[in-house]
Protein backbone atom coordinates (compact mmCIF):
# COMPACT_ATOMS: atom_id res chain seq x y z
CA UNK A 1 0.00 0.00 0.00
CA UNK A 2 1.25 3.46 -0.85
CA UNK A 3 1.42 6.37 1.53
CA UNK A 4 -1.16 8.17 -0.62
CA UNK A 5 -3.65 5.47 0.33
CA UNK A 6 -3.78 6.92 3.86
CA UNK A 7 -5.91 9.88 4.84
CA UNK A 8 -4.09 13.13 5.61
CA UNK A 9 -2.07 12.58 8.81
CA UNK A 10 -3.01 8.87 8.89
CA UNK A 11 -6.16 9.03 11.05
CA UNK A 12 -9.66 9.02 9.55
CA UNK A 13 -11.77 12.16 9.82
CA UNK A 14 -14.23 10.79 12.39
CA UNK A 15 -11.34 9.91 14.70
CA UNK A 16 -9.74 13.32 14.25
CA UNK A 17 -13.04 15.06 15.08
CA UNK A 18 -13.31 13.03 18.29
CA UNK A 19 -9.72 13.88 19.27
CA UNK A 20 -10.22 17.55 18.33
CA UNK A 21 -13.30 17.82 20.55
CA UNK A 22 -11.32 16.32 23.44
CA UNK A 23 -8.45 18.76 22.87
CA UNK A 24 -10.83 21.75 22.91
CA UNK A 25 -12.37 20.62 26.21
CA UNK A 26 -8.89 20.05 27.61
CA UNK A 27 -7.95 23.61 26.65
CA UNK A 28 -11.13 24.94 28.27
CA UNK A 29 -10.37 23.21 31.58
CA UNK A 30 -6.57 23.46 31.97
CA UNK A 31 -4.99 20.43 33.62
CA UNK A 32 -8.16 18.33 33.56
CA UNK A 33 -7.80 14.88 31.99
CA UNK A 34 -10.30 14.43 29.17
CA UNK A 35 -11.03 10.84 28.09
CA UNK A 36 -10.75 10.03 24.39
CA UNK A 37 -11.19 6.88 22.33
CA UNK A 38 -7.51 6.23 21.64
CA UNK A 39 -6.87 4.26 18.46
CA UNK A 40 -4.45 1.50 17.65
CA UNK A 41 -1.52 3.20 15.96
CA UNK A 42 1.14 1.52 13.82
CA UNK A 43 3.55 1.61 16.76
CA UNK A 44 3.46 0.03 20.20
CA UNK A 45 2.05 1.72 23.30
CA UNK A 46 4.87 3.49 25.07
CA UNK A 47 6.26 4.82 21.80
CA UNK A 48 4.17 7.93 21.83
CA UNK A 49 0.78 6.79 20.50
CA UNK A 50 -1.00 9.50 22.52
CA UNK A 51 1.28 12.26 21.30
CA UNK A 52 1.06 10.95 17.74
CA UNK A 53 -2.75 11.06 17.80
CA UNK A 54 -2.79 14.61 19.18
CA UNK A 55 -0.22 15.66 16.59
CA UNK A 56 -2.25 14.02 13.80
CA UNK A 57 -5.38 15.91 14.89
CA UNK A 58 -3.52 19.25 14.96
CA UNK A 59 -1.32 19.08 11.87
CA UNK A 60 -2.01 21.22 8.81
CA UNK A 61 -0.09 20.93 5.52
CA UNK A 62 1.67 24.23 6.34
CA UNK A 63 3.22 22.92 9.57
CA UNK A 64 6.90 22.27 10.16
CA UNK A 65 7.26 19.36 12.57
CA UNK A 66 10.02 18.67 15.06
CA UNK A 67 10.08 15.50 17.16
CA UNK A 68 12.38 14.99 20.11
CA UNK A 69 12.98 12.02 22.37
CA UNK A 70 14.66 12.96 25.66
CA UNK A 71 15.83 16.14 23.95
CA UNK A 72 17.38 14.39 20.95
CA UNK A 73 16.20 14.73 17.36
CA UNK A 74 18.09 11.67 16.15
CA UNK A 75 16.96 8.77 18.33
CA UNK A 76 14.82 5.94 16.99
CA UNK A 77 11.51 7.16 18.40
CA UNK A 78 11.98 10.72 17.13
CA UNK A 79 13.23 9.67 13.70
CA UNK A 80 10.39 7.22 13.12
CA UNK A 81 7.60 9.59 14.22
CA UNK A 82 9.04 12.39 12.11
CA UNK A 83 9.23 10.05 9.15
CA UNK A 84 5.68 8.80 9.81
CA UNK A 85 4.21 12.29 9.49
CA UNK A 86 6.47 13.28 6.60
CA UNK A 87 5.02 10.32 4.74
CA UNK A 88 1.37 10.40 5.83
CA UNK A 89 0.84 14.17 6.09
CA UNK A 90 3.50 15.45 3.73
CA UNK A 91 4.57 18.07 6.26
CA UNK A 92 8.01 19.63 6.38
CA UNK A 93 10.23 18.49 9.23
CA UNK A 94 13.04 20.20 11.05
CA UNK A 95 15.45 19.71 13.91
CA UNK A 96 15.64 23.40 14.78
CA UNK A 97 13.36 24.38 17.66
CA UNK A 98 12.99 27.95 16.42
CA UNK A 99 11.88 26.80 12.93
CA UNK A 100 9.20 24.35 14.10
CA UNK A 101 5.50 25.19 14.32
CA UNK A 102 4.58 21.94 16.07
CA UNK A 103 6.94 20.02 18.34
CA UNK A 104 6.16 16.54 19.62
CA UNK A 105 8.27 15.69 22.63
CA UNK A 106 9.04 12.73 24.79
CA UNK A 107 10.15 13.82 28.24
CA UNK A 108 11.82 17.20 27.59
CA UNK A 109 10.95 20.83 26.95
CA UNK A 110 13.38 22.39 24.46
CA UNK A 111 15.95 24.78 25.92
CA UNK A 112 15.24 27.39 23.25
CA UNK A 113 12.29 29.51 24.46
CA UNK A 114 9.02 28.65 22.69
CA UNK A 115 6.87 31.26 20.95
CA UNK A 116 3.17 32.01 20.48
CA UNK A 117 3.31 30.43 17.03
CA UNK A 118 4.21 26.98 18.35
CA UNK A 119 2.39 24.00 19.81
CA UNK A 120 4.21 21.55 22.08
CA UNK A 121 2.73 18.03 22.18
CA UNK A 122 3.85 15.75 25.02
CA UNK A 123 3.84 11.97 24.96
CA UNK A 124 2.44 10.85 28.30
CA UNK A 125 2.73 7.33 29.76
CA UNK A 126 0.68 7.75 32.99
CA UNK A 127 -1.53 10.88 32.91
CA UNK A 128 -2.95 10.46 36.41
CA UNK A 129 -0.62 12.08 38.99
CA UNK A 130 -2.45 10.26 41.81
CA UNK A 131 -2.32 6.81 40.17
CA UNK A 132 0.54 5.35 42.21
CA UNK A 133 -1.12 6.63 45.39
CA UNK A 134 -4.65 5.45 44.51
CA UNK A 135 -5.02 2.79 41.80
CA UNK A 136 -8.81 3.08 41.36
CA UNK A 137 -9.90 5.46 38.57
CA UNK A 138 -13.32 6.29 40.13
CA UNK A 139 -11.48 7.29 43.32
CA UNK A 140 -8.93 9.51 41.59
CA UNK A 141 -11.74 11.11 39.57
CA UNK A 142 -13.50 11.89 42.84
CA UNK A 143 -10.32 13.24 44.38
CA UNK A 144 -9.87 15.64 41.45
CA UNK A 145 -13.53 16.70 41.63
CA UNK A 146 -13.22 17.45 45.36
CA UNK A 147 -9.77 19.01 44.94
CA UNK A 148 -8.61 16.45 47.51
CA UNK A 149 -4.86 16.47 46.98
CA UNK A 150 -3.66 15.84 50.54
CA UNK A 151 -2.34 12.41 49.55
CA UNK A 152 0.09 13.98 47.08
CA UNK A 153 1.48 16.26 49.75
CA UNK A 154 1.84 13.27 52.08
CA UNK A 155 3.90 11.54 49.41
CA UNK A 156 6.19 14.58 49.03
CA UNK A 157 6.40 14.84 52.82
CA UNK A 158 7.44 11.18 53.07
CA UNK A 159 10.21 11.94 50.58
CA UNK A 160 11.45 14.62 52.95
CA UNK A 161 11.11 12.39 56.02
CA UNK A 162 13.09 9.61 54.35
CA UNK A 163 15.64 11.49 52.24
CA UNK A 164 15.74 14.96 53.77
CA UNK A 165 14.52 16.48 50.53
CA UNK A 166 11.80 15.92 47.94
CA UNK A 167 13.42 13.09 45.99
CA UNK A 168 11.03 13.17 43.02
CA UNK A 169 13.25 14.26 40.16
CA UNK A 170 11.00 13.79 37.13
CA UNK A 171 7.22 13.50 36.65
CA UNK A 172 7.14 16.16 39.36
CA UNK A 173 3.48 17.05 40.14
CA UNK A 174 2.20 20.55 39.41
CA UNK A 175 -0.94 22.51 40.19
CA UNK A 176 -2.58 24.29 37.26
CA UNK A 177 -4.27 27.67 37.78
CA UNK A 178 -4.74 26.83 41.45
CA UNK A 179 -7.15 24.00 40.62
CA UNK A 180 -6.05 20.70 39.05
CA UNK A 181 -3.00 18.73 40.09
CA UNK A 182 -1.46 17.54 36.83
CA UNK A 183 1.23 15.12 35.73
CA UNK A 184 3.63 17.05 33.48
CA UNK A 185 4.73 13.73 31.89
CA UNK A 186 8.18 12.41 32.80
CA UNK A 187 10.04 15.63 32.04
CA UNK A 188 12.88 16.33 34.49
CA UNK A 189 11.80 18.71 37.25
CA UNK A 190 14.47 21.01 35.76
CA UNK A 191 11.92 21.69 32.99
CA UNK A 192 8.96 22.36 35.32
CA UNK A 193 9.47 26.16 35.50
CA UNK A 194 9.16 26.30 31.69
CA UNK A 195 5.59 24.93 31.91
CA UNK A 196 4.30 28.10 33.54
CA UNK A 197 3.53 31.21 31.55
CA UNK A 198 4.70 29.53 28.34
CA UNK A 199 3.70 31.50 25.20
CA UNK A 200 3.10 28.24 23.30
CA UNK A 201 0.05 26.01 23.63
CA UNK A 202 0.97 22.74 25.40
CA UNK A 203 -1.02 19.56 24.71
CA UNK A 204 -0.60 16.20 26.44
CA UNK A 205 -1.64 12.86 24.93
CA UNK A 206 -1.69 9.48 26.69
CA UNK A 207 -2.54 6.76 24.17
CA UNK A 208 -2.72 3.62 26.31
CA UNK A 209 -4.48 5.46 29.14
CA UNK A 210 -6.76 7.29 26.67
CA UNK A 211 -6.46 10.77 28.13
CA UNK A 212 -5.80 14.23 26.68
CA UNK A 213 -5.09 17.36 28.69
CA UNK A 214 -3.77 20.81 27.98
CA UNK A 215 -2.11 23.97 29.20
CA UNK A 216 -3.24 27.06 27.29
CA UNK A 217 -0.57 29.74 26.76
CA UNK A 218 0.33 31.87 29.79
CA UNK A 219 -1.26 29.40 32.21
CA UNK A 220 -0.02 29.47 35.79
CA UNK A 221 1.66 26.16 36.67
CA UNK A 222 3.10 25.72 40.17
CA UNK A 223 5.28 22.79 41.22
CA UNK A 224 4.00 21.40 44.52
CA UNK A 225 6.22 22.07 47.52
CA UNK A 226 6.28 23.19 51.15
CA UNK A 227 7.11 26.59 52.64
CA UNK A 228 10.18 25.15 54.39
CA UNK A 229 11.11 22.88 51.45
CA UNK A 230 10.55 25.08 48.39
CA UNK A 231 10.63 23.54 44.92
CA UNK A 232 14.18 23.23 43.56
CA UNK A 233 14.44 22.56 39.82
CA UNK A 234 17.91 21.09 40.32
CA UNK A 235 20.87 21.26 38.00
CA UNK A 236 23.83 18.92 37.50
CA UNK A 237 26.90 20.58 38.93
CA UNK A 238 28.66 20.67 35.56
CA UNK A 239 28.75 22.52 32.25
CA UNK A 240 28.14 20.77 28.92
CA UNK A 241 31.40 19.12 27.87
CA UNK A 242 30.69 19.76 24.19
CA UNK A 243 29.28 23.30 24.07
CA UNK A 244 30.13 24.63 27.52
CA UNK A 245 26.53 25.62 28.34
CA UNK A 246 26.06 26.14 32.06
CA UNK A 247 22.28 26.51 32.03
CA UNK A 248 21.01 23.46 30.12
CA UNK A 249 19.77 20.05 31.23
CA UNK A 250 22.61 17.53 30.98
CA UNK A 251 22.89 13.82 30.22
CA UNK A 252 25.69 11.91 31.95
CA UNK A 253 27.54 9.66 29.53
CA UNK A 254 29.95 6.90 30.56
CA UNK A 255 32.87 7.04 28.13
CA UNK A 256 35.26 4.28 29.24
CA UNK A 257 35.65 1.33 31.63
CA UNK A 258 37.65 3.36 34.13
CA UNK A 259 34.85 5.52 35.47
CA UNK A 260 35.35 8.27 32.92
CA UNK A 261 32.27 10.29 32.18
CA UNK A 262 31.14 13.37 30.41
CA UNK A 263 28.11 15.63 30.64
CA UNK A 264 26.37 16.79 27.47
CA UNK A 265 23.25 18.81 26.73
CA UNK A 266 20.22 16.55 26.41
CA UNK A 267 18.79 19.03 23.86
CA UNK A 268 20.85 18.15 20.77
CA UNK A 269 19.57 21.10 18.70
CA UNK A 270 20.50 23.56 21.45
CA UNK A 271 23.97 22.02 21.82
CA UNK A 272 24.65 22.01 18.06
CA UNK A 273 23.47 25.60 17.81
CA UNK A 274 25.88 26.70 20.49
CA UNK A 275 28.80 24.79 18.96
CA UNK A 276 28.02 26.28 15.55
CA UNK A 277 28.15 29.68 17.24
CA UNK A 278 31.67 28.91 18.43
CA UNK A 279 31.11 27.77 22.01
CA UNK A 280 33.39 24.89 22.97
CA UNK A 281 33.18 22.80 26.12
CA UNK A 282 35.82 20.86 28.07
CA UNK A 283 35.92 17.88 25.67
CA UNK A 284 34.51 19.56 22.58
CA UNK A 285 36.17 20.07 19.26
CA UNK A 286 35.56 23.18 17.16
CA UNK A 287 32.45 22.88 14.99
CA UNK A 288 33.26 21.23 11.66
CA UNK A 289 36.36 19.43 12.95
CA UNK A 290 36.50 15.66 12.43
CA UNK A 291 35.35 13.71 15.46
Amino acid at each position, binding site marked *: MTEQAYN*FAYLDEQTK*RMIRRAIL*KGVAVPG*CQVPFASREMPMPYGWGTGGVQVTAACL*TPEDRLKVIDQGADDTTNAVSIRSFFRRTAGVAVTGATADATLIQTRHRIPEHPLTEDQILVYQVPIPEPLRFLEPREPETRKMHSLEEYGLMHVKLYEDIARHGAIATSYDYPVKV*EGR*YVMDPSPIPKFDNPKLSGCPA*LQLFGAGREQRIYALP*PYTSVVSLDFDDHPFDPGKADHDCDLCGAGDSYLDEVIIDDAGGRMFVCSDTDFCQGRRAAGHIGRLGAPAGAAA
Partner: protein
Amino acid sequence: MANPLTAETLGGGFDDAPIQSARAFRAALDAMARPGRIHVIAGARPPAPLSAAAGTLLLTLADGTTPVHLAGDIDCDALRGWITFHTGAPLVPAEAAVFAVGRWTDLAPAHRFAIGTPEYPDRAATLIVEMPVLEAEGPVLAGPGIRDRARLTLPDPEAFRANHALFPLGFDTFLTCGNRVAGLPRSTRVEDF
Protein backbone atom coordinates in the same frame (compact mmCIF):
# COMPACT_ATOMS: atom_id res chain seq x y z
CA MET B 1 -39.98 14.71 4.44
CA ALA B 2 -39.31 18.20 5.65
CA ASN B 3 -35.87 18.39 4.08
CA PRO B 4 -36.03 18.18 0.31
CA LEU B 5 -32.73 17.28 -1.30
CA THR B 6 -31.91 20.59 -2.89
CA ALA B 7 -28.64 21.93 -4.18
CA GLU B 8 -28.60 24.19 -1.14
CA THR B 9 -28.82 21.19 1.20
CA LEU B 10 -26.28 19.06 -0.62
CA GLY B 11 -23.81 21.83 -1.47
CA GLY B 12 -21.72 24.12 0.65
CA GLY B 13 -19.62 21.42 2.28
CA PHE B 14 -15.84 21.05 2.31
CA ASP B 15 -14.25 20.38 -1.08
CA ASP B 16 -11.27 18.71 0.57
CA ALA B 17 -12.43 17.70 4.05
CA PRO B 18 -9.13 16.46 5.58
CA ILE B 19 -7.20 19.60 4.68
CA GLN B 20 -9.95 22.17 5.19
CA SER B 21 -11.03 20.71 8.53
CA ALA B 22 -7.38 20.59 9.67
CA ARG B 23 -6.94 24.29 8.94
CA ALA B 24 -10.32 25.14 10.46
CA PHE B 25 -9.51 23.18 13.61
CA ARG B 26 -6.21 25.00 14.07
CA ALA B 27 -8.05 28.31 13.86
CA ALA B 28 -10.67 27.09 16.35
CA LEU B 29 -7.99 25.65 18.64
CA ASP B 30 -6.02 28.88 18.71
CA ALA B 31 -9.22 30.85 19.26
CA MET B 32 -10.16 28.68 22.26
CA ALA B 33 -6.58 28.67 23.59
CA ARG B 34 -6.21 32.47 23.31
CA PRO B 35 -9.53 34.08 24.29
CA GLY B 36 -9.94 37.49 22.69
CA ARG B 37 -7.98 36.62 19.55
CA ILE B 38 -10.12 36.64 16.41
CA HIS B 39 -9.37 34.17 13.61
CA VAL B 40 -10.65 33.78 10.08
CA ILE B 41 -12.19 30.34 9.63
CA ALA B 42 -13.61 29.31 6.30
CA GLY B 43 -14.47 26.45 4.00
CA ALA B 44 -18.19 25.84 4.52
CA ARG B 45 -20.92 27.72 2.64
CA PRO B 46 -24.04 26.96 4.67
CA PRO B 47 -27.54 28.16 3.75
CA ALA B 48 -28.65 31.48 5.26
CA PRO B 49 -28.84 32.61 7.98
CA LEU B 50 -25.90 30.54 9.34
CA SER B 51 -22.50 32.25 9.08
CA ALA B 52 -19.61 30.66 7.21
CA ALA B 53 -17.65 30.51 10.49
CA ALA B 54 -20.41 28.68 12.39
CA GLY B 55 -20.96 26.33 9.46
CA THR B 56 -17.24 25.56 9.27
CA LEU B 57 -17.08 24.86 13.01
CA LEU B 58 -19.97 22.39 12.68
CA LEU B 59 -18.41 20.59 9.71
CA THR B 60 -15.09 20.40 11.59
CA LEU B 61 -16.37 19.25 14.99
CA ALA B 62 -19.87 17.76 14.71
CA ASP B 63 -20.80 14.27 13.57
CA GLY B 64 -23.26 11.47 14.33
CA THR B 65 -22.00 11.24 17.92
CA THR B 66 -22.62 14.90 18.80
CA PRO B 67 -26.23 16.07 19.22
CA VAL B 68 -26.71 19.63 17.93
CA HIS B 69 -29.27 22.19 19.06
CA LEU B 70 -30.42 24.83 16.58
CA ALA B 71 -31.88 27.97 18.17
CA GLY B 72 -34.14 30.67 16.78
CA ASP B 73 -34.10 31.30 13.03
CA ILE B 74 -31.12 28.94 12.64
CA ASP B 75 -33.70 26.20 13.20
CA CYS B 76 -35.05 26.26 9.65
CA ASP B 77 -35.62 23.51 7.10
CA ALA B 78 -32.68 24.50 4.95
CA LEU B 79 -30.20 24.34 7.83
CA ARG B 80 -31.70 21.23 9.39
CA GLY B 81 -31.25 19.52 6.05
CA TRP B 82 -27.74 20.90 5.52
CA ILE B 83 -26.44 19.89 8.96
CA THR B 84 -28.08 16.48 8.78
CA PHE B 85 -26.66 15.77 5.33
CA HIS B 86 -23.14 17.05 5.99
CA THR B 87 -22.55 15.94 9.59
CA GLY B 88 -25.21 13.35 10.45
CA ALA B 89 -25.60 15.04 13.82
CA PRO B 90 -28.93 14.42 15.60
CA LEU B 91 -30.90 17.64 16.17
CA VAL B 92 -32.00 17.88 19.80
CA PRO B 93 -33.41 20.25 22.47
CA ALA B 94 -30.97 22.55 24.30
CA GLU B 95 -30.61 20.28 27.37
CA ALA B 96 -29.23 17.36 25.31
CA ALA B 97 -26.91 19.34 23.05
CA VAL B 98 -23.16 18.88 22.68
CA PHE B 99 -23.14 21.85 20.29
CA ALA B 100 -25.73 24.63 20.25
CA VAL B 101 -25.90 27.22 17.50
CA GLY B 102 -27.82 30.50 17.38
CA ARG B 103 -27.95 34.12 18.36
CA TRP B 104 -27.51 34.79 22.05
CA THR B 105 -31.12 35.91 22.56
CA ASP B 106 -32.29 32.61 21.07
CA LEU B 107 -29.84 30.49 23.09
CA ALA B 108 -30.71 32.18 26.40
CA PRO B 109 -31.28 31.18 29.13
CA ALA B 110 -27.82 29.62 28.99
CA HIS B 111 -28.30 27.58 32.15
CA ARG B 112 -30.22 25.07 30.05
CA PHE B 113 -27.01 23.72 28.57
CA ALA B 114 -24.88 20.87 29.90
CA ILE B 115 -22.07 22.09 32.16
CA GLY B 116 -20.38 18.72 32.74
CA THR B 117 -20.18 16.71 35.95
CA PRO B 118 -17.69 17.16 38.81
CA GLU B 119 -15.89 13.96 37.76
CA TYR B 120 -16.13 14.71 34.03
CA PRO B 121 -16.18 18.49 33.47
CA ASP B 122 -15.53 17.83 29.77
CA ARG B 123 -19.09 16.56 29.30
CA ALA B 124 -20.27 20.12 28.76
CA ALA B 125 -21.90 21.85 25.82
CA THR B 126 -20.09 24.11 23.38
CA LEU B 127 -22.14 27.11 22.29
CA ILE B 128 -21.62 28.66 18.87
CA VAL B 129 -23.04 32.17 19.23
CA GLU B 130 -23.78 34.15 16.08
CA MET B 131 -22.80 37.77 16.66
CA PRO B 132 -23.84 40.90 14.73
CA VAL B 133 -20.34 42.30 15.34
CA LEU B 134 -17.18 40.67 16.67
CA GLU B 135 -14.30 42.93 17.63
CA ALA B 136 -11.42 42.90 20.11
CA GLU B 137 -13.08 45.56 22.22
CA GLY B 138 -15.58 45.63 25.07
CA PRO B 139 -15.41 43.71 28.35
CA VAL B 140 -11.94 42.89 29.70
CA LEU B 141 -10.95 39.21 29.76
CA ALA B 142 -8.28 37.54 31.88
CA GLY B 143 -7.25 33.97 32.62
CA PRO B 144 -5.49 31.05 30.92
CA GLY B 145 -4.46 31.84 27.35
CA ILE B 146 -4.30 35.58 27.99
CA ARG B 147 -0.93 37.18 28.78
CA ASP B 148 -2.18 40.36 30.39
CA ARG B 149 -5.64 41.43 29.38
CA ALA B 150 -7.79 40.94 26.29
CA ARG B 151 -11.03 42.51 25.14
CA LEU B 152 -13.85 40.94 23.18
CA THR B 153 -17.38 41.81 22.13
CA LEU B 154 -19.65 39.74 24.39
CA PRO B 155 -23.42 39.39 24.07
CA ASP B 156 -24.02 39.25 27.82
CA PRO B 157 -20.97 39.69 30.14
CA GLU B 158 -23.03 38.81 33.21
CA ALA B 159 -23.95 35.36 31.84
CA PHE B 160 -20.29 34.56 31.11
CA ARG B 161 -19.28 35.77 34.56
CA ALA B 162 -21.88 33.40 36.05
CA ASN B 163 -20.59 30.60 33.82
CA HIS B 164 -17.00 31.16 34.96
CA ALA B 165 -18.17 31.04 38.58
CA LEU B 166 -19.09 27.37 37.97
CA PHE B 167 -15.49 26.50 37.01
CA PRO B 168 -14.33 23.75 36.46
CA LEU B 169 -17.89 23.17 35.27
CA GLY B 170 -19.58 25.37 32.69
CA PHE B 171 -20.14 25.58 28.94
CA ASP B 172 -17.57 26.81 26.44
CA THR B 173 -18.30 29.28 23.71
CA PHE B 174 -17.28 30.15 20.18
CA LEU B 175 -18.40 33.57 18.99
CA THR B 176 -18.87 33.77 15.22
CA CYS B 177 -19.52 36.61 12.80
CA GLY B 178 -19.22 36.15 9.05
CA ASN B 179 -16.01 34.21 8.51
CA ARG B 180 -14.49 35.14 11.87
CA VAL B 181 -14.37 33.24 15.13
CA ALA B 182 -13.26 33.90 18.70
CA GLY B 183 -13.24 31.55 21.68
CA LEU B 184 -14.42 32.05 25.22
CA PRO B 185 -13.73 29.00 27.40
CA ARG B 186 -15.26 28.70 30.86
CA SER B 187 -11.81 29.38 32.34
CA THR B 188 -11.91 33.03 31.20
CA ARG B 189 -12.70 35.68 33.80
CA VAL B 190 -14.87 38.51 32.52
CA GLU B 191 -13.81 41.58 34.47
CA ASP B 192 -15.43 44.96 34.93
CA PHE B 193 -15.11 47.57 32.24
